[in-house]
């Protein structure tokens, strides 16, 4: 990845900022950074349907908007369905000659809560219907941040949140992170990928592939949230990188059902490197960390074997 920086970075990317300055995300919010890069890759001809959550709130306090592209927010659990309606509306209006023919991508977006919990049904419906030029992006910061860091089904095992606090009788979140990418893959859609706010070029490349696949496509973007993870804001990029380098959050894509690992990691770092320093994990014991290490290794190996069998 780093070799990209040997050249002048702004030349490698769309310079238009369609998510403008003046948005009110916290200092060091890598979810906002991920949105910025997703928009760079998507370009101009899109319509965004955004679920309720941090990115919606920080960007749209009436009468202000941080969006330079068409954008709609309706409710928390329905971005998949709203984006379906947008896709269907644009399609039929073009077919009936009421608006000019042009490829416009309908992009649904939401946080992990909006995607893996309350909006899962609406998203599943949307993916199943096979809308063309349809992309859904989950910005996963691993909790309901907008409402004050409550757990979601995407919160990792062991993380303390305000509704999964660590305590005498609790390790914090006691369920394993829901594998949302696998659920998307099960819909048999042409493109699914995981990405991370610390790898903007990889993220942008995947957005472009997702769009080129024709859709529906699903991207699951680990988006580091310093506020909710209880890390200093300047370490937002570092922790995303550690998530990938430890195998906690593997980067891969699934094109027409074929898995391919997309980050070159010769040897995984121990999960301890990732867990330590994050306030949400500070209570974990060595035994807890061992349990997490075993699980991460097992899941990572599964992906590696899928990668190997799919890529001969």
């Amino acid at each position, binding site marked *: 990845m*780093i070799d990209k*920086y*040997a*050249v*002048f*970075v*702004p030349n490698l*990317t769309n310079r238009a*900022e*369609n*998510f*403008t*300055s*003046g*948005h*009110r*995300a*916290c*200092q*060091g*919010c*890598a979810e*906002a*950074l991920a949105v*910025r890069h997703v928009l760079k890759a998507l370009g101009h001809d899109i319509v965004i349907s955004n679920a309720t959550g941090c990115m919606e709130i920080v*960007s*749209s*306090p*009436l*009468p*202000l*908007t*941080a*969006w*330079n*592209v068409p954008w709609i927010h309706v409710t928390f659990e329905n971005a998949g369905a709203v984006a379906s309606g947008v896709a269907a509306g644009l399609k039929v209006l073009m077919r009936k000659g009421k608006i000019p023919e042009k490829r416009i991508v309908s992009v649904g977006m939401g946080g992990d809560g909006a995607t893996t919990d309350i909006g899962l049904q609406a998203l599943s419906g949307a993916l199943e219907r096979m809308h063309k030029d349809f992309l859904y992006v989950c910005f996963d910061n691993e909790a309901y941040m907008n409402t004050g860091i409550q757990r979601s089904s995407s919160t990792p095992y062991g993380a303390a949140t305000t509704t999964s606090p660590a305590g005498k009788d609790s390790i914090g979140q006691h369920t394993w992170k829901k594998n949302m990418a696998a659920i998307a893959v099960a819909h048999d859609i042409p493109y699914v990928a995981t990405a991370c706010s610390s790898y*903007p070029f990889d993220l942008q490349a995947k957005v472009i592939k997702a769009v080129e696949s024709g859709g529906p496509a699903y991207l699951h973007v680990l988006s580091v949230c*310093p506020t909710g993870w209880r890390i*200093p*804001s*300047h*370490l*937002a*990029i*570092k922790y995303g990188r550690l998530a990938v380098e430890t195998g906690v959050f593997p980067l891969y894509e699934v094109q027409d059902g074929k898995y391919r690992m997309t980050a070159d990691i010769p040897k995984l770092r121990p999960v301890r490197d990732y867990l330590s320093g994050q306030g949400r994990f500070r209570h974990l014991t060595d035994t807890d960390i061992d349990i997490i290490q075993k699980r991460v290794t097992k899941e990572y190996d599964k992906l590696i074997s899928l990668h190997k069998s799919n890529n001969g």
Partner: protein
Amino acid sequence: MPKPMEEYRVEDLNPGCVIDEPGNAVVYHTGNWKSQRPVWNEQKCIKCGVCWNFCPDNAIMRKEGGYFVADYEYCKGCGICAHECITQCITMVEEVV
């Protein structure tokens, strides 16, 4: 140019509260959130733009000559640029008001 919220009257709102000035959030300056500001040492800067790429607030601009500078109107002082800079040419200095 949008007015402050409390000056809006019913008649000033578009039907459905649609906002038809894209990106008008730029009038909101987040720069006063910061307690520290990034400062570049141009001696060490290799003009790669890593800082620019990782800024969540689009608050880093390229100056003439290819060096980078923060747009202090928006920079929230998160310190990502300083931490990510390959040559460590950015230092965070305390914001004095």
